[in-house]
């Protein structure tokens, strides 16, 4: 999370501030406030413990400590912390869901293109109350 990436600056939405609308750009975003609408970043998004997002999110990496309601696309990684809550479908290249986290939705993996197909890095999701596991 602290390492450098494509976006060179990090924006912060603090606790009592709310955005209604679209947010986009090559930027990292740290949300402690509230966003409703849509988010499309080429950087990372970090939804802090007081952050609430009711929006579809597309970003490089997504870290959720707060609440997200919407479909998320993480081109690199999706991480849901124990305090985090994701209601919606996720599409990610890699997922990391900690014990205690809430995830209600479907998960799709982005297949790494051009990597050695032998190493199956397929992360196994064993969400207790979601018996849908489509594996063709």
């Amino acid at each position, binding site marked *: 999370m602290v390492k450098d990436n494509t976006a060179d600056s990090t924006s912060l939405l603090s606790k009592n501030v709310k955005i209604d609308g679209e947010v*986009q750009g090559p930027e990292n975003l*740290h949300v402690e406030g509230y966003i409703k609408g849509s988010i499309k970043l080429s950087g990372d998004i970090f939804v802090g413990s007081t952050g609430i997002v009711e929006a579809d999110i597309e970003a490089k990496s997504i870290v959720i400590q707060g609440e997200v309601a919407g479909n998320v696309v993480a081109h690199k990684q999706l991480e849901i912390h124990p305090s985090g809550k994701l209601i919606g479908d996720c599409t990610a290249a890699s997922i990391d869901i900690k014990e205690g986290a809430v995830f209600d939705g479907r998960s799709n993996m982005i297949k790494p293109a051009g990597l050695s197909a032998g190493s199956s890095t397929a992360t196994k999701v064993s969400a207790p109350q979601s018996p849908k596991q489509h594996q063709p």
Partner: protein
Amino acid sequence: MPLFGKKKPENKSARPQAAVSQKETTYFGKNLKIKGRVSGNGNIIILGALDGEFNLKGRVKIAEPAKIKGEVKADVISVNGNVRGSLVARERVHLDQTARIEGQINTPSLSITEGASFDGEITMRGRSPQASRPADADAAPAFQNTAKSTSK
């Protein structure tokens, strides 16, 4: 190391600050584009683009690369960037020398640094009509001098 030290982007020092010490100040970086409405309590610094509306209880600083289209409503507004639309302040407005404004300003108290550009109209509500009239009369010619006169 001093000879070959690579130039690091300036965000090195800015990032920990934004994350730790400025918890209360919302910061919209220069690459962030927002379309819609931003509201709430707290201070905001914006360097990016906003197409829509700010409605804040607190201070708004529109920094130099920022481009705002729409209405900005806050307690204190200070501008270094570009605004097309209206600024409505409950306390005061300050236009710094790099400010470029097109539109309306509504504030009880105003200051403008030489070099700022302002095309538009000012109303100073929150003052008694007698007091506001000379203030407006004083202010108006001053803008025509300092502001680039694009209006006919």
